[in-house]
């Protein structure tokens, strides 16, 4: 189920930065509040907004906060280019234009009564965090929660304090690994697929949600299937170039799908044959 915006979809609404938190040397979490009192954006976990920096440009960024918190929107942004650099350089009180929310969300309804497996790579944990929040806030509606998270190195890990607190929740397992360990890292070293052997999974009752670089998602999906998950119980979040986010500019096409409209969250079965195609 997706929510449509009530205002003109190509017009940015003014929001104000009310918090900037540094997660890693190149990644920041911005908290935004709408300028106008009655502008409230509800969103589904997995949806994204188009964020506009005056004079620089506009980008699709996944919403990363609590879905039912009506008065704030939270985004974790990694600085990889001019526009993202401008976003992370905003200060409290600066204005950012917001359009959205757009796209399809994670299957939090379909996952009720199931175990939830969240597999994240790098910045991919940001679009999945609303799922974790939702499951923990509605703990009785879900079975086991397993979070498998891989990052490049210890200093690239997001939400470290939250990861620890999530691990202490009932019936919840959080496993973290890094590709490159460094000196003081006492945890797992290896790609995120190597965490599977330590996870206590019940594949027949599980729904998996995966987000990260495309290569990582392909490896993870294979691993999930090897561990007994059915294809229809695996969901991925895909990414392509986006300009309008409303299915008109044509840029985000992925096979027959518009990622802004038919995605970004897809059941694995729907895109399985597309994932293998080079330069699709």
């Amino acid at each position, binding site marked *: 189920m997706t929510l449509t915006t009530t205002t003109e979809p190509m017009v940015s609404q003014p929001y104000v930065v009310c918090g900037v938190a540094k997660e890693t040397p*190149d990644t920041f979490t911005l908290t935004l509040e709408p300028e106008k009192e009655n502008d409230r954006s509800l969103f589904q976990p997995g949806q994204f907004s188009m964020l506009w920096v005056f004079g620089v440009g506009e980008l699709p960024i996944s919403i990363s906060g609590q879905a039912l918190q009506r008065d704030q929107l939270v985004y974790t942004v*990694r600085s*990889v280019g001019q526009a993202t650099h401008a976003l992370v350089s905003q200060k409290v009180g600066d204005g950012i234009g917001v359009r959205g929310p757009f796209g399809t969300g994670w299957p939090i309804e379909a996952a009720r009564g199931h175990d939830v497996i969240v597999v994240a*790579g*790098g*910045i991919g944990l940001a679009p999945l965090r609303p799922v974790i929040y939702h499951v923990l806030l509605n703990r009785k509606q879900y079975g086991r929660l397993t979070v498998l998270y891989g*990052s*490049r190195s210890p200093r*690239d890990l997001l939400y470290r304090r939250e990861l620890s607190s999530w691990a202490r929740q009932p019936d919840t397992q959080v496993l973290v*690994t890094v*590709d*490159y*360990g*460094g*000196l003081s*890292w*006492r*945890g*797992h*070293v*290896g*790609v995120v*697929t*190597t965490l599977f*052997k*330590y996870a206590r999974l019940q594949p027949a009752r599980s729904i998996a949600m995966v987000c*990260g*670089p495309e*290569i*990582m998602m392909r*490896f993870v999906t294979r691993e999930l299937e090897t561990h007994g998950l059915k294809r229809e119980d695996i969901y991925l979040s895909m990414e392509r170039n986006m300009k309008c986010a409303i299915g008109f500019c044509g840029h985000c096409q992925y096979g027959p799908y518009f990622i802004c409209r038919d995605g970004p969250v897809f059941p694995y079965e729907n895109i399985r044959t597309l994932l293998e195609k080079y330069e699709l």
Partner: protein
Amino acid sequence: METLERIIAEHPFFTGLDRDFIALLVGCASNVHFKAGTYILKEGDPANTFYLIRGGRVAVEVVAPQHKPIIVSTLSVGEILGWSWLLPPFQWKFHARAAEDTRAIALDGKCLRIKCEENHDLGYEILKRFAQIMEQRLDATRLQLLDVYAVGR
């Protein structure tokens, strides 16, 4: 007090192995403990043991000039450490350090090599299992090499 035979039979690496073969292995096996920080094996040393990890965590490391040791992977409960005992020149290629207090079953490599030569069926079962481990580690290593989280690939 669990017998070595039971512990070996229950370790994931040996799942499905014939009871008779397990009995053969027991003769080469012993219980070992490593305090956190101890080096279990070192690069360049003769490789004559392999370990079934029962608890704790082991860091596989590489040392290079001008660098402190780099951990290339960690291994934990249910995994095995070391296969260089199986293939010539029977020499360790990496360091392995107990990152935490680690318990393991040590299997005598020389003893095992002889038994595998004498009993090719046992040898085949061992090699099959190692081949699978190697494939998994190779896949994981390749994915690690791709450095998928880096910017501006």
